[in-house]
Structures are given as structure tokens and as C-alpha cells.
């Protein structure tokens, strides 16, 4: 996704002299094509994220469109109050690029994980918060937002490995996209977590359970109407995000369910505790924190069982879903603990 970013920024900069790119000393082997093509419009401001947002505020106020780049947690959280008092309060077109959502910087450790960036930023009115699901959507989201007047935060993935089938690069602010249809379960994923939901859906399909998978990449403005329409059709929904369970898509879905009085039980699959002292790769950490495909499949089965019990009026017996069985490729795990 970083390569898609730089390719798109070069394309934009060719046409629009207002485009600038700033980095807080990150982006080795990524940003060079832009820096070489536009040396006068590229600024490494040093390891100083607060100043970077302040500079971008002054530049945007003077008519430029600065894109500022860092690892997601450093881009979003270190200068949080600069973002709030600068581009947000003054409604300026600063584009904040945060790379690496969730556990993407796996072996770098917890200081490098972005687990609350989306939640913290989607509270800010007028700040677009976008979590592209793949490179194609990253490109279309960048192009879509570029000409707009207000600020935006993009949470981008590091690598260009996965394309969400059926998404075809679509992006629209305030809209969500259904990339798989099924009547037995509903998954709602924040951006790239769609990959996890689709793998869970594959595993469930082997069991004869067909899932709908919705991708939410426009976290703000939120796709409230798309969510409402879909959630009103399902008795349960499983949300998934590479983020704390509070503040992201799980919270958003609960907001929509509550505010529209929908009869839908929500299971939030997100990180629920501080990930310290637990090293591993991204897949390992996803599994450890309850956001693996196995956890999602288990949560959907649990949701389905509870829905069936509710329909029949019978009591819910714990662990019944294990009787359904899993294909050999998917190891059954316990359903995630309820989010706090």
C-alpha cells in the first residue's frame, strides 16, 4: 500500500503544484521516487512529528496540500493535539498518512502498534478517517479526498500483498462495501481486516454456513446508512479490526445498532488488553489477541447459535458450537472473551 501511496502522490503532484510530501524521518526505500522527482516539494523534517503537523498547518493555510508521513502511531498520537488545534479546528487540507495498522510492525514491538489511532481520530469532527482495505482502494481514496478542503487521516498498510476480492478499488466517503454475500452470518471489517473476515467466511462455507462480509474503510464520515440497512437484516454481527475493540468499527456498529434500535447482537473482535511482553509475528499476535480467522469463525458460530436459541426460546448451552466441527485447516479456538 505504501508503493500505491507514492505512485499516487507522484501522479497528483504532476498535476497539482500544491502537493507537498513531508516525513518525520521514516519511509526508507518507499518515499525516494517522490523525493527524486520533486526534490523541492519533499521535506524530511527530522524526528519531530509535532512540528511536522504544525508546519503542515501553516503550509495548508497558505494554499498548499501537505501530505505528512510516519508510522501510524507516531503520525496520529504523538502530535494529536497539533492535529486537533491545527488542521481540524482550522479546517485545513492536511493529509496525514499513518503506516502500519494493528500489529503490522509485529517484531518492532508494542511502541510501534497502532491500536487506537482510528478511535482517537474519528472523534474529531470534520476529519476524514480512512482505512483502505487494499492498494486499489488506497489509490482511489487518495484521489477522492485530494481536492477536498478539510483534513484527512489515512491508515495505510505497509505491504502490497493482498487485494480484497470484489472490492475492485472502489471507495466513496461515507459508504461501505459488501464483498461477499451470504444469509447465515455477517462480518463487518475495518479496512484490511476484511482479509481475516473473508478467511473466516471461507472456513464457515465449508460447513455450509454462508456469510456476508462488509468492508468499512470510510470510518469518518461513517457509512451509517449502509450499516443500518445491512444490520437490520441480520440477528447477529461480528465486527473485526486490527485495533482496540473500543473506538473503531466495533464501536461504530454498536452505535448504529443502538441509535436505530436494531435487533442485532454484536460481537466485537478487537484487541482488549495491552500487548506488552508478547513478541511475535502479525499472525501470531492476531491469534493471541482474538482477531484471527479462527476467532471470527468461532464468534459467528456462537452468534448463530444464540440467534437460533433466541428464535426457539430455548436456553443457550455453552460450547454447543464445537459440535459443528471445523475443517482441518482451521483449528478451533475458544470464542473470544466479551469486550469490556
Amino acid at each position, binding site marked *: 500500500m505504501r508503493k500505491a501511496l507514492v505512485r499516487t502522490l507522484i501522479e497528483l503532484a504532476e498535476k497539482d503544484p500544491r502537493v*507537498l510530501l513531508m516525513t518525520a524521518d521514516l519511509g526508507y526505500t518507499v518515499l525516494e521516487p517522490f523525493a527524486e522527482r520533486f526534490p*523541492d*516539494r519533499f521535506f524530511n*523534517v*527530522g524526528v*519531530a512529528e*509535532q*512540528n511536522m*503537523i*504544525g*508546519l*503542515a*498547518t*501553516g*503550509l*495548508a*493555510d*497558505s*494554499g*498548499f496540500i501537505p501530505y505528512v508521513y510516519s508510522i501510524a502511531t507516531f503520525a496520529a498520537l504523538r502530535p494529536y*493535539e*497539533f492535529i486537533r*488545534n*491545527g488542521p481540524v*479546528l*482550522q479546517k485545513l487540507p492536511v493529509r496525514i498518512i499513518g503506516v502500519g495498522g494493528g500489529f503490522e510492525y509485529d517484531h518492532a514491538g508494542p511502541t510501534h502498534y497502532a491500536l487506537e489511532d482510528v478511535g482517537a481520530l474519528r472523534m474529531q469532527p470534520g476529519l476524514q478517517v480512512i482505512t483502505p482495505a487494499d492498494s486499489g482502494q488506497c489509490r482511489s481514496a487518495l484521489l477522492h479526498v485530494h481536492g477536498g478542503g478539510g483534513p484527512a487521516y489515512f491508515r495505510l498498510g505497509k505491504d502490497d500483498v493482498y487485494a480484497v476480492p470484489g472490492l475492485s478499488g472502489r471507495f466513496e466517503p461515507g459508504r461501505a462495501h459488501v464483498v461477499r454475500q451470504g444469509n447465515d452470518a455477517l462480518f463487518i471489517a475495518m479496512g484490511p481486516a476484511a482479509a481475516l473476515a473473508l478467511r473466516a467466511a471461507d472456513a464457515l462455507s465449508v460447513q455450509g454456513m454462508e456469510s456476508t462480509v462488509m468492508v468499512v474503510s470510510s470510518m469518518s464520515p461513517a457509512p451509517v446508512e449502509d450499516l443500518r440497512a445491512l444490520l437490520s437484516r441480520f440477528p447477529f454481527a461480528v465486527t473485526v479490526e486490527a485495533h482496540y475493540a473500543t473506538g473503531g468499527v466495533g464501536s461504530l456498529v454498536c452505535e448504529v445498532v443502538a441509535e436505530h434500535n436494531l435487533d442485532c447482537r454484536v460481537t466485537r473482535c478487537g484487541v482488549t488488553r495491552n500487548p506488552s511482553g508478547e513478541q511475535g509475528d502479525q499472525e501470531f499476535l492476531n491469534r493471541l489477541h482474538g482477531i484471527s480467522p479462527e476467532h471470527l469463525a468461532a464468534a459467528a458460530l456462537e452468534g448463530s447459535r444464540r440467534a437460533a436459541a433466541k428464535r426457539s426460546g430455548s436456553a443457550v448451552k455453552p460450547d454447543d458450537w464445537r459440535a459443528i466441527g471445523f475443517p482441518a485447516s482451521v483449528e478451533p479456538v475458544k470464542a473470544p472473551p466479551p469486550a469490556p
Partner: protein
Amino acid sequence: MAFPHSPLFPQVTPKAVRRIVLEQAMRAHVGHIGSALSVADILAVIFSGRVDSVMDGSVSKDRFVLGKGHAALALYAALHLQGRMTAEVLDGYCGNGGTLGVHPERELDGVEFSSGSLGQGLSVACGAALAKRLKGEPGRVRVLISDAELNEGSTWEAIMFAAHRKLDNLDVIVDVNGQQALGMTKDVMDLTPLVPRWQSFGWEVRQADGHDTEALVASLGIMAKASGRPQVLLARTMSGKGVGFMEGQIKWHYWPLSDSDFTAAMAEVERAA
């Protein structure tokens, strides 16, 4: 004289600024009076037009950022005296539904940046100065910060950036009144030696009496001649300047005026030259 033209706004005088600061603080019964009086002379010089470096007709190409947003009342006074803010708007200071708070908002004509959170104004001013350079636009970017803002690490990020990028269209004025909210800077967070600190970061440093308008005009005039380095003017000031019982007193950072305080303060300001 560094600037060839006469003041465009001769009515923006330190005395007139102080008078409005006291009247509005009294009417609204709010504090931050000491900080506003501390910068009254500096703002009067800048908003009188005496130091405008480049004019486009009667419009200055210079920009101004008030880093120390808590001195906004002095800025409102200057804008009102310039004729950019009506008496009605000014009288809405700290009122319900008005646009003037203790800290200034960008929605107002003449306010470049909504400040109030210390340590952000200099970064924004650096961005504005960089923008001027990228656009080949003449004029200065001036930013007035407090000495206590030098407690903020982000201010030093901006200080390093401006020196590294040789932003010589940027003029920083530090209101060195030696006090902050809860005490004297030497007791809270000692900033000395201030001159070598700025110099060692690559800045051209000047000092002046921040209440001597001729000295301020002269210093800002020299600074406006680009030198290849960013410039800072350490303006030595007194919090509460012009009202004897407020001068150098910590309590007048926040304290509002009583009726008798107001009468005495106004009488002293009127007596001044």
C-alpha cells in the same frame, strides 16, 4: 528609519491598547491582564503598520501569529484600533454568542491561527514562512511567543527546523517577562542563559526593551533585512506593564479587576506619556 513609510495606523498606540485591555477585562471580569499589558507595546508597533516590510497597496504582505494566545485581548484591541473590528464585536469579548474569547480564533479577520495551546504557534509560523519561500512571495512572518513557551519541546523542534531550513523571512519575538502562570521562570524552569541558547541553535539574536517602541521598530527593521538565518528578538518586558500594582505580580496573570483596581489602573495609564 528602516521603513520608508509613515504609520498607516497611527491610532494604534500602546496607551490606546492598554486602555482597551483594561476596559474589556473589567467589563467581562476576566484575567490574563498582565500578559496582555506585557505585549501591548510590541503589538502596537506591529499593528501600527510602522514595520510592514512589503505593501500591496494598503495591504501588508507580512503575516503575524500570536503564539501566546492568552494575550489575545491586546490583539483584539489592536485590531479594533486599526478599524478591522467593530466596537460591537469588541464588546462581545467573553460574552455568550460572541466571537472573542480569552484565546483568539482564526475565524476573526486579523487572526492567522487559533492559538491558546502553548508551543504550537512557532511551528505554524515556520510553515507559513516556508510557504512564502515556496511561492516566492515577499514579506515577513512574525510570531510572538512567551518565554514560558520555551518550556515546550515542540517549540525547540520548530527552532531547529527554522535554522536548518534557513528561514530568513521568519522573525520571532519572545516576550521575555520572566514569569509564567505559577511563578517566575527562573524558579519554574530556568531559561538562562537565553541568548547563547538561541545562538547555539543557529539563530540571529537581538535584544531590546520590549516597552520602548522606537527600539522595537529599529530592531524589527534590522531583522527584516534577510540575513540567511532566522531571527529572534528577545523583548525584555514586564508583566502588567503600565499599571504599577500589577507589574511583576504573579497574581495578575489570572486575577480580574475590582472597581477600585480599575479606577486606579486607568488613571495610571492615562497619566502615562
